[in-house]
């Protein structure tokens, strides 16, 4: 009987979640967006992987005087894809030049940057050389949280020198992301990537091991206690009638 009540409760919660999905789904995307208003900075860094929107936002920031130079990460093409198009950082440089950014204001961080974490590692090396520099990172709104997580993880105290500006995305917004394939992919994959980052680069594995051990210990302890209570109950003398 108790299980039926639990089942009905779950069913009700799911039904309410579906009916009122437009109320809470935007919150999932808004949680990922930690972008702020721009700060004056020495470098505007463009994260790789968003050539259709990030360089355009960075160029707008540069032209309005929010940054003195633009930082890019070198991104080498995957094997087999070298011949059709130039590498992404070269395309981004070409876009920035076409948008009016002088080539002497574009700085490329050398290395093979296959992931957000690698790009922030290179940024850390730059900040080690220029500890007073202020950085504005430009990336997609839903990517800002993972980028900030990486910045705090790698840069530690220097993370306060970094701010984040969200670049708008074509085709979806934070308020209706689930209505387009691109938006659905961006938001859901960001949550999965956050989970992956916490395991790969954070405390995810030790915390999971500790939590798993505690759960096992708790289950064994509860079983042991129940068995002992049963044996004690069996030893109790029957009440005389």
């Amino acid at each position: 009987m108790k299980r039926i009540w639990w089942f009905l409760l779950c069913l009700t919660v799911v039904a309410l979640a579906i009916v009122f999905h437009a109320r809470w789904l935007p919150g999932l995307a808004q949680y990922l967006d930690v972008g702020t208003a721009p700060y004056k900075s020495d470098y505007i860094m463009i994260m790789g992987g968003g050539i259709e929107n990030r360089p355009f936002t960075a160029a707008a920031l540069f032209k309005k005087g929010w940054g003195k130079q633009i930082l890019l990460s070198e991104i080498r093409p995957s094997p087999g894809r070298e011949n059709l198009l130039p590498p992404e950082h070269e395309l981004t440089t070409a876009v920035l030049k076409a948008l009016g950014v002088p080539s002497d204001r574009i700085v490329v961080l050398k290395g093979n940057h296959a992931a957000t974490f690698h790009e922030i590692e290179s940024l850390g090396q730059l900040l080690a050389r220029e500890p007073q520099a202020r950085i504005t990172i430009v990336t997609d709104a839903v990517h800002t949280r993972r980028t900030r997580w990486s910045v705090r993880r790698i840069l530690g105290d220097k993370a306060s020198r970094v701010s984040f500006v969200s670049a708008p995305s074509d085709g979806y917004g934070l308020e209706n992301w689930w209505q387009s394939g691109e938006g659905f992919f961006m938001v859901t994959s960001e949550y999965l990537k956050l989970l992956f980052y916490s395991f790969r680069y954070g405390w995810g594995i030790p915390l999971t091991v500790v939590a798993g051990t505690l759960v096992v210990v708790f289950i064994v302890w509860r079983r042991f206690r129940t068995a002992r209570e049963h044996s004690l109950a069996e030893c109790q003398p029957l009440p005389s009638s």
Partner: protein
Amino acid sequence: MKTAGTIHELPLPVRDVLTLAIGAVSDRAPTAVWISIMRTAASEHGQATDSSAQVSDQRPSSGCGRTLRRLVVVFLCLVIAFLLRNQWLPIVAYPLLAPTPQHLNEVTLIWVHTHDGRGFAGDGVVERTASLLKAYPKANVIFTQGWSSRLVEMGVIPPPVEILRRALADYQIPSERVTQIDVAGYQFWNAARAMDAYLSEHPQERVVLLTSEFGGRSHSLVLRAAMSAPNRDRVDILGLPDFRYSHHDWWKSRAGVKGLMVGYLYLIYTVFQPQPVEPIRKLTLDDFDKLIPDLSEKAP
């Protein structure tokens, strides 16, 4: 009685595993189960057993011991799953794959598509297209483009159809064999609608769509939603594996795991929403400028 006799006849290692499994799901300890089996078997063979030993062994085991046994079984299952991963992990990717093309030798059109307006869907598209064109000299390439890249509009890169023609020229394929059809909209669903209209006008054509291996099933679902049944039956899908992984070994690389995740996310979305809810609004260069505030003296 018959069951116990059957168990007794099993080889010793099988009996051990069976005993452990029964003990794991039973309220009685494995030893108690085993004694029970042995007692039944012994009685069948007319042997006597010590009744006091039976009583002590048949006492219900503690919950603690039972839980531990279940944990051991789960752990063993995990170890077996790990050891046999090469056998079952490819199956995880099967739902993402399109059915194997049945009419590849009858193909007259090779359909190449771009999603982002820069690259082509699937790795090795150019090489595969060239080999198909050489194998079927009467076949041609039909190209569709959903998203129109800003990089093309700004002249930073040439249009993708030109990139394709130039790449095929390296394989001595003349550019006349590549035709682009107009697509009204930015998504693959729009391209599928355009292909549907084209096939209605060209009833003799048979098409093979080249796309990424893990995008095969989701593309198939979009085709099913966007095209009429007779035209859809004339389109096969050929999934091209990524250069770095395929469904045989996706778990061996980070790119493969990511590719599988991307494939499943798109598949899940396509199952529920194969056609676009509303047309995509493309941002203009002015939109980017307007979103950035002007620098004032009070700026931090």
